[in-house]
């Protein structure tokens, strides 16, 4: 039985407005899972996430360890989970801990020092690239698609 993780998205803005709504409508998501070790410590950030979640959609706000534990114990089996995280290394950690990821969608990563631009809303640092290459060689499909109406670019295309 699959672990319930239907879509994995890297988005520095986590859950934001209509982008979230569009994905939820397209994927028929039942739960959004935000995995971030910093957000869990901030009541303000958590309040913003709760406000941004469309009505009727379940929400999990978890540390990487918490997400790994819950997913591996099969807590979300039979659900349709959209997993959102800000960084590549959390996904690498989850993968290394044995979490199966259907694929990774690089949605939104902002400009930062040492970052290189790959598309309008995607800037990757050498560390990000290392993580993604690692996951790619381990067989995790990597794509970039900001909104469902945008054409899917796969990792190889992105690196061109």
């Amino acid at each position, binding site marked *: 039985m699959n672990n319930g993780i239907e879509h994995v998205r890297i988005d520095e803005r986590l859950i934001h*407005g*209509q*982008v979230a*709504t*569009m994905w939820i409508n397209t994927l028929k998501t039942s739960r959004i899972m935000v995995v971030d070790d910093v957000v*869990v*410590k*901030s009541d303000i950030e*958590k*309040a*913003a996430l*709760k*406000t941004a979640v469309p009505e009727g959609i*379940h*929400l*999990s*706000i*978890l*540390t990487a360890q*918490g997400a790994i534990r819950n997913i591996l114990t099969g807590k979300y089996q039979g659900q349709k989970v959209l997993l959102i995280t800000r960084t590549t290394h959390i996904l690498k950690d989850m993968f290394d801990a044995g979490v199966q990821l259907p694929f990774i969608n690089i949605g939104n990563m902002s400009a930062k020092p040492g970052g290189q631009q790959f598309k309008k809303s995607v800037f990757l640092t050498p560390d990000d690239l290392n993580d993604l290459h690692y996951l790619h060689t381990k067989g995790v499909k990597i794509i970039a698609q*900001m*909104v469902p*109406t*945008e054409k899917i670019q796969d990792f190889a295309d992105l690196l061109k």
Partner: protein
Amino acid sequence: MHYLIVGHGNYAIEIKRSYEMILGINNNIHPVHFDATMSPADLFLEYEKIIQKISTGNITVIVDIPGGTPCNTALQLTIKYPQIKIYGGLSLALMIELGMGESLFSAYEGVASGMRHIVPEYTSTSINDNGEEEM
């Protein structure tokens, strides 16, 4: 559907830019700039340029405020182009609703539902010492 959007100053142009930051490029949104140096006749010409550029599909005009010059000038268009409808209340929220495929009627409803004091209302079904929560 094509949307000719217009407001005072750079309003419409910036709405399109903001829209595209959220939903991506949309070639069916045609913004018009209007400033104090322009006469209603100048503005009318800007409208016509866009209308003539759009060869197929219906055109809806959305203005910022009823009774303003962008609106009044748009009303002149309906003499020459009676099929064109004019709506008010141009905003980013409205354009996003339309961009997501809502009809004008439900787009207005969607915008209205967001015009409120934003208070988080939720109940977490579980919370632990790490700050992890689920609902």
